[in-house]
């Protein structure tokens, strides 16, 4: 069951990089857990720390002005690569509740929606202006209104965004999607009976 998504008025954290892959968001050695919690320590590990484990002061997440920010603003193709949902769990555990970018990888985008993190896709020029504003005045705030589907930038600029209506409802109400689907169990039963007649070779037990 995911957390409900309310509106946000928070510090915006700029990460001006494209093709940020999920290996960079959470390195593989943190994937050995059997839990969903506690992954924030590994978030962007190789970019946050040097070889001795000391914080790299230039990295946005380490700068005092950006601490506690709940909105990450990044460049194109955010979350590409591995399907690891640990990337979303790590962002969430660290405190992020929304990511704004010109584009997202498909799997990462889905994973966000299943966990109550809002992925906001905006035109590249608008993301560029947000990145510039957040970098120019570190600690500037961003407002995200899911119900109204708008982002307000630090200069008062308003950016409408689109979202799948069902995903929006799930986020706003924190719905359990599995419970919703199980309400259609009768239809799944019926599908299996019909399909079993057409492709009977697919209805043998692999463990048998």
């Amino acid at each position, binding site marked *: 069951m995911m957390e409900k998504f309310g509106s946000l008025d928070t510090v915006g954290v700029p990460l*001006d*990089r*494209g*093709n940020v*892959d999920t*290996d*960079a968001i959470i*390195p*593989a*050695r943190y*994937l*050995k*857990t*059997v*839990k969903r919690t506690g992954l924030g320590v590994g978030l962007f590990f*190789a970019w946050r720390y040097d*070889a001795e484990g000391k914080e790299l002061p230039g990295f946005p997440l380490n700068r005092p002005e950006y601490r506690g920010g709940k909105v990450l603003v990044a*460049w*194109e*193709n955010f979350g*590409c*690569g*591995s*399907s*690891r*949902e640990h990337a*979303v769990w790590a962002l969430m555990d660290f405190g992020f509740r929304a990511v704004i970018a010109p*584009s*997202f*990888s*498909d*799997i990462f985008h*889905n*994973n966000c929606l*299943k*966990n109550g993190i809002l992925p906001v896709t905006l035109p590249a020029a608008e993301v560029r202006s947000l990145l510039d504003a957040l970098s120019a005045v570190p600690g500037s705030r961003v407002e995200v209104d899911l119900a109204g589907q708008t982002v307000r930038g630090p200069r008062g600029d308003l950016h409408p965004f689109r979202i*799948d*209506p*069902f995903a929006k409802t799930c986020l706003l109400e924190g719905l359990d*999607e*599995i419970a919703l*689907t*199980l309400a*259609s*169990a009768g*239809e*799944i039963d019926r*599908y*299996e009976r019909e*399909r079993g007649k*057409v*492709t*009977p*070779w*697919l209805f*043998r*037990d*692999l*463990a*048998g």
Partner: protein
Amino acid sequence: MPTLFGKIWDRHVVTAREDGNVLLYIDRHLVHEVTSPQAFEGLRAAGRPVRRPGTMLAVPDHNVPTTRDRVEWIDDRESREQIEALRGNALGAGIALFDIADPRQGIVHIVGPEAGLVQPGITVVCGDSHTGTLGAFGTIAFGIGTSEVEHVLATQALWQKKPRQMRITVNGALRSLVTPKDVILAVIAKIGASGGTGYAIEFAGETIRRMSMEGRMTVCNMTIEAGARFGLIAPDGTTFAYLKGRPLSPPPSLWDAAVGYWKGLASDPDAAWDREETLEAGNLEPHVTWGTSPQDALPVGGAVPDPAKAADRSERERIRRALDYMGLAAGTPLTDIPVDKVFIGSCTNARIEDLRAAAEVAKGRKVAANVTALVVPGSGQVKRKAEEEGLDRVFVEAGFQWRLPGCSMCLGMNPDRLNPGERCASTSNRNFEGRQGPGGRTHLMSPPMAAAAAVAGRIADVREVAR
């Protein structure tokens, strides 16, 4: 006028919502130890059973060491616990398991097809982005996150929106020592790391038709590296011949009916494509990556690009960062780049044909003194077959290490990894920063090119090494 993808999709719609999302039925579900424990835990917490365990196969691959002692003991406690969790979850739910000591164990995307459980016209998912590999059989096969794994466990279905349709046509006969890996690297370089986002990509054309199932799997495997969750190829005689007689293929009593059904699976000649691309492969050169994105591939005769010549500010900055991470200077010929390690393996290139192609280059030659080289067969069956053919002896005599099956050095989750600053010629799929171990530097290439790099001690044109 539907595409192949559209035909399979339509036959799997359980119910549709007005907003365009459909509940898509899932025929087969593969699970490995890394992305499934939280899904099983979620089911337990909600008191929900696994709906159809008979459609599933579980196999440990990401965490497993590739050395012989792994069956007795695994040093890494967390790795051990994940593998134990997979075993417990599979046995508890009645799911088929190819456990660590099973001769069929291997990389999930390699053992599924070997068992015959991936068949044309089906839907397959796995909590792994390289699931698109299985689209080589003419299936809708895609990677999902752990929440979706849990959803499939509980319901045998997923809410999905139909992706846009792209066709990539590849024409021309590949020259000697040019491989399907070079084809897909060239495709990714052409359309970019996000060129396929939102799409399902069907690969077509005479080059694809001539490929074996192994080669087709290599192509579909890296579709995700172009951003597309789905890559697929229409089934044909090559597909049917591969499937005949495999343990989980349709039994003899249903074989003819199955083939009849499969033969109807192709895009209509007038199918509507949202995007079309072509690649002329007749003059294709072996490809190598220089940067930290799979789109950074060039013909091996090329040189490291100059950020100053990039099209815009973002790209200039991206190339500059990549060269800094990779420790490379602009203008350096690719064949002047020395390597420390060579990795021949992964779900991209650890099937029998890959090992044959690499062994052909390794035969009678020696791994350079400065290089550590690993060959990791993709499955127990690949390993056994290679040993029957004497490939293991070819590799060992040349100075390669011959290992047990697993994901190995592709991803830095098991003991096989790069040390900081080490440079690797790798047949895997991702050259991301730190992918093969923190600070490691990856150059992606084909199995014969990796074998040539091992022999030369640097990135080399296999056509010169093998001359």
